């Protein structure tokens, strides 16, 4: 067993340079950042975004940092708010093995520090790669099933390591200081499933991003911390939040295997576990020009785990509609779209749509379906049987989105929130991030034309 995973991980991450990233990893990170900014813009539609914005303003400080598609806020406030916006409408990344949204904890502190310290796009790209890789590796090492059984929710527990790593990368920490940053991140690990069903579950992402920022900035001062935050016998994370975990997994194949490639993206604002259903529905619509009037019955087969969480959920409010397989199946068929208007109160309560779902949509357990896969069988009014089976959804790490798809998501997110030319300029800068001289120029695109805060 690796006795010093913190030290070894810190040594690797502190040495990470643009030149050490394979080109396909640079492209993958670029895609993830583009998608994350799109999610943050969309987050302006979040029901609780204004509440977090009020908090960010109340904690005070000069408003010098960019908030994506909103008025500037303090360094800490912008980090909190960007972290929340990325996750607010449930379209951000998901690392399925640890059920962790990672980008909300990584990008906001990285963006804030890169903007403040005059970093280049290339610096930001490396920093985000460092943060993503840190979180996936630590999440793998901590042994998620054991951690989950104890009640812990990943983003606030392992997420702070990502923000801390990104900040540490941007500030050029040598290995020892990087190790302190990791330790100071782990000393802030928090957040449990007691909040499931409330927006505090998303606050974990937001708070996790702030914790990473604090860890990085405190380590910058040369503040000492414990040397082995993962495996320390008394208070190490792997022992305290889990069953001892697998420390070797944290450092296995460092520099050869890029675990950040296991991060999935989402095209649609709905629970990550039912994205396969949406994928299948769009496939059937595209292939057969399927319309509600053609449908006698839709049968959706899910794994037992997903069925138990999402199979029978009513859709009496937005939160539950986003998690409800019956509703999502029905609304995608009717609207041929799955975006915010599909989850507005008037759409959720539409009696005709509700009647169709109750009469024509059946959800069940299909033992042949594993994990978050899905099978959709459609019996048409003219007697045909149509079928689409998905082992994983579009956007999954195994079926990653094309850049064109992410750009489309970006434009849809930005519609009405960013000026059109800012949208195109921001996309251009993000796609060419590795060659962008200053991140602050990109930040200007995120805030141009945005009304000043009251």
């Amino acid at each position: 067993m690796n006795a010093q995973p913190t030290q070894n991980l810190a040594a690797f991450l502190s040495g990470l340079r643009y030149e050490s990233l394979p080109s396909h990893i640079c492209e993958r990170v670029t895609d993830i950042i583009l998608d994350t900014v799109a999610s943050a813009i969309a987050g302006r539609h979040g029901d609780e975004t204004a509440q977090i914005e009020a908090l960010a303003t109340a904690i005070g400080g000069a408003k010098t940092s960019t908030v994506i598609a909103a008025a500037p806020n303090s360094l800490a406030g912008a980090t909190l708010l960007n972290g929340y916006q990325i996750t607010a409408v449930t379209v951000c990344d998901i690392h399925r093995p640890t059920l962790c949204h990672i980008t909300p904890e990584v990008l906001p502190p990285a963006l804030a520090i890169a903007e403040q310290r005059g970093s280049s796009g290339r610096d930001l790209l490396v920093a985000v790669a460092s943060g993503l890789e840190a979180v996936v590796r630590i999440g793998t090492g901590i042994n998620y099933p054991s951690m989950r059984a104890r009640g812990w929710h990943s983003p606030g527990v392992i997420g702070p390591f990502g923000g801390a790593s990104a900040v540490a990368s941007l500030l050029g920490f040598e290995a020892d200081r990087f190790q302190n940053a990791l330790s100071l991140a782990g000393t802030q690990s928090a957040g449990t499933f007691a909040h499931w069903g409330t927006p505090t579950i998303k606050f974990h992402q937001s708070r996790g991003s702030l914790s990473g920022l604090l860890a990085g900035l405190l380590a910058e001062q040369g503040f000492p911390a414990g040397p082995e935050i993962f495996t320390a016998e008394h208070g190490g994370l792997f022992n305290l939040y889990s069953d001892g975990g697998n420390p070797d997994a944290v450092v296995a194949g460092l520099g050869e295997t890029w675990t950040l490639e296991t991060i999935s993206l989402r095209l649609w604002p709905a629970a990550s576990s039912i994205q396969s259903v949406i994928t299948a529905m769009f496939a059937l619509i595209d292939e057969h020009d399927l319309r509600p009037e053609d449908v006698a019955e839709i049968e959706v087969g899910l794994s037992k785990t997903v069925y138990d969480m999402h199979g029978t959920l009513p859709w009496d409010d937005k939160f539950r509609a986003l998690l409800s397989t019956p509703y999502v199946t029905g609304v995608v068929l009717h609207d041929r779209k799955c975006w915010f208007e599909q989850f507005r109160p008037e759409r959720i309560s539409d009696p005709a749509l509700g009647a169709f779902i109750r009469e024509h949509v059946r959800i069940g357990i299909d033992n042949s379906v594993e994990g978050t896969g899905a099978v959709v069988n459609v019996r048409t009014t003219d007697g045909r049987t149509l079928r689409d089976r998905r082992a994983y959804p579009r956007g999954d790490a195994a079926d990653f989105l094309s850049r064109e798809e992410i750009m489309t998501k970006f434009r849809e997110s930005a519609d009405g929130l960013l000026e059109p030319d800012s949208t195109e300029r921001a996309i251009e800068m993000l796609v060419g991030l590795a060659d962008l001289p200053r991140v602050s120029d990109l930040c200007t695109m995120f805030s141009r034309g945005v009304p000043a805060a009251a």
Partner: protein
Amino acid sequence: MKMTLESTPTDELARFAAEFSYGDLPASIRDFARHWLLDSLACALAGDLGDETAKYADFARAVGGAGEATIIGSPERLSLLGASLLNAYQITAVTVCDTYVPAHVHISPEIIPPALAVAERDGLDGRALLTAVAIGAEVAVRVAAGIDYSIAGPRGWHFPGIVGPFGAAAAVGHLRGLTPLQMRNAFGLAGSQSAGTWASWGTPAVKFHQSRGAGSGLLAGLLAEQDFISSAEILAHPDGGVFAAYSDGGKPQAVVADLGKGFELEQISLRLWPGGTPLQPTLTAVFNLIAAERPPFDAIEHVRIEVAPDVYEAHARFAEPEGKFEALLSYPFIVASVLRDGRFWLDSLHPSQVGDPDLNRFMRERIELVANADLDRERSRIEVVLAQGQTIAARADAAKGTPGNPAELADLRAKYERCVAGRLGDADAAELLDLLIHVDELDDLSRLFKLLGAAHQRRAA
């Protein structure tokens, strides 16, 4: 989501924190809270002597930026978050602040700074401030009692970052006038940030837990004010409630037992001298000894320090301390220092003192630390044999400052004077002390904040 209050421990505690008033506080609790506040701010005024305080100040500036909240002992003003972080660190920086011994937790660093910041910003009076910090302390120690440190501590949890956010959220929430339901959300948001383990023991990162706890409580209170919703049962939820996640289910009834009538905050101990909590009974005993009869240092032939066996096991290895951290845990060092100097304060820990060859020789040749099975952690005995064969002895059955041997106002005044020496002019120091002693009579706290910010830096920040 349950949007009404019921009679769960979380709900009852939320109702208490939101609705309890100054008029409900018994006079003895007001007295205790006043003394506790005075002592905590005295600690903060000593905080500039902490080895990492200057670094921490730079950190707080970087995170928080300029703002509207006073930094204790500094003319600068930082954001609410920055001030909460830095003032909290200052209270705990030199290890003379309060401890709720049953849970090994410092309470004041988490609760007082965010309450000060909000009270100052909102122009609140002294009565509101005192009420809020008393409620915050009561909430924090009750949550600590509920989690049960005897289970959680051995697992590796360090409580300031875990229960501190609850207390700070209660204080901030009370000042902001949260409803009981909003207060319950504030507790949920506090618990969602509960963090900190003993993995950092031996480094200043354990003090960061106090500071971050203050910031977490501030965030929780201010976000709950926005009607942000959190778990309806942060304490006892079977899937991730703090009693389950940090302990073995805890003792929910301890949270609400005699709530509003009995006050667990009275069990908070104050420290009159630097040094680990277990050393305080011995410090008390040796000061009792020299108060009765101070032996000439060079006439001392032998010193026998008696402590409980488990204390002996934990501290015997610090017989010849290296550096300040070990000196604060070393019985021979503190006793030798008191017998020679007649006092023990932060300057007693200067490297020139810790490394003093004469003092070290005395410790090595004349001091004996022994385990006495008749003593528990609260008790210590000291015996000094003089050259002429005379033996003098003293004992402490409770450390001065603990519930069993409470500090008097005169003790706290003397500590305050040590803390502010060189920081405030005599007139300002006396005025500040007077304001703190009468804090709940102040309609306007602006003079108090002005004096807190007026102190000189003894060490460059």
